[in-house]
């Protein structure tokens, strides 16, 4: 699933610059994620254009997490930024009943075309992104750095 870039390290991170949001795994609720990300991007002093790119990227990240089974469980989003204007978002799909250790859980049948689309779009929108699935828990993340003004 997507590029294999290590997830951002959050352990010991400054809690002040960190926001956590949990929302139903339902595409209709993604506006909450977009608005939260835009508010965080504002704190990181990203420009309007990057804020708009981030909103699109959040959609892609969440949709990649939802895969072909939207509506089951919750999406937990963790957003963090620093004074240098680096913003990380990690999304985790928490299935109903919590994460499962069942290694025999069947893999999701995400359409390759959908994943290809998400990857292409995220490639263009953010600086880094990646995803993994461990113990039946799907994660996806992205990193965006504040762009210097282009005069």
């Amino acid at each position, binding site marked *: 699933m997507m590029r294999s870039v290590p997830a951002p390290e959050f352990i010991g991170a400054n809690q002040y610059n960190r926001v956590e949001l949990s929302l139903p795994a339902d*595409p*209709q609720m*993604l*506006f909450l994620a*977009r*608005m939260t990300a*835009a*508010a965080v*991007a*504002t704190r990181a*002093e*990203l*420009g*309007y*254009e*990057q*804020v*708009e*790119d981030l*909103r*699109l990227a959040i*959609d*892609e990240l969440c*949709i990649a997490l*939802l895969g*072909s089974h*939207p509506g089951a469980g919750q999406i937990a989003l963790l957003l963090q930024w620093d004074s240098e204007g680096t913003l990380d978002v990690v999304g985790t799909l928490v299935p109903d009943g919590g994460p499962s250790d069942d290694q025999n859980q069947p893999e999701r049948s995400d*359409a390759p*075309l*959908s994943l*290809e*689309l998400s990857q*292409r*779009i995220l*490639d*263009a929108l953010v600086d880094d992104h990646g995803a993994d699935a461990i113990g039946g828990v799907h994660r996806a993340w992205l990193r965006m750095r504040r762009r210097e*003004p*282009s*005069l």
Partner: protein
Amino acid sequence: MSTRARPREELKELFSEFARSGDREIRAQLVEAHIALAHHLARRFVYRGEPYDDLVQVGSLALIKAVDRFDPDRGVEFTTFASKTILGELKRHFRDKGWAIRAPRRLQELYLQLNQSVALLSQELGRSPTIAELAADTGAPEEHVIEALEAGRSYRSTSLESSGPDEDGVGARLGAEAREMGSVEWRATLEPHLQALPQREQAILRLRFVAGLTQSEIATEMGISQMHVSRLLAHSLSTLRQRCGEVEELP
């Protein structure tokens, strides 16, 4: 303006006569004499994503309304009176007709205001403005700016909804150029789905995700506002996802 073509005194007399008689022929003459005012005011709104002809139509209907309501004995110039009426109708047109989902009026107005602020500040600063700068420029709190941007997703203009071809437009040309630049994988997997989108949306997707242009660069290339590019991108990605069989259209 065509008011120059007819002496002021003559127009005054026509207004007085129309006020007395309500003669439809005189009304037509008065509308014709001031039609340039409707064009002039419609031009102020062309960067908001609506076709110019539609705006002229809204302005022209408002001009007729102004002619009907004008009282020549009040001592106010007709152009002053009509300008207020026409501008009011044009603003109402954007506020009421352009929204797929009813957003609160304050957000609708702020969104339209932001459209201009983004363009002006980008030009002044030589970079994309921050949300804080947009808030300062519009006099709205930052959270309202963020809300308005989200609400803007439900704003639709005629050109956004148009599914007709745009073969002669700049969109088609630029889209074709960007298509040539796309990777083999992109072309093989996504081109068939892109073909289902209107030409302009195809072009914008290719320019952003294949050619790697920024939203502001696309806006400059295509002669539309940056916020319009944002809306078109969000809309076409949602459509594309549907085509790829993923999820229903995002709100």
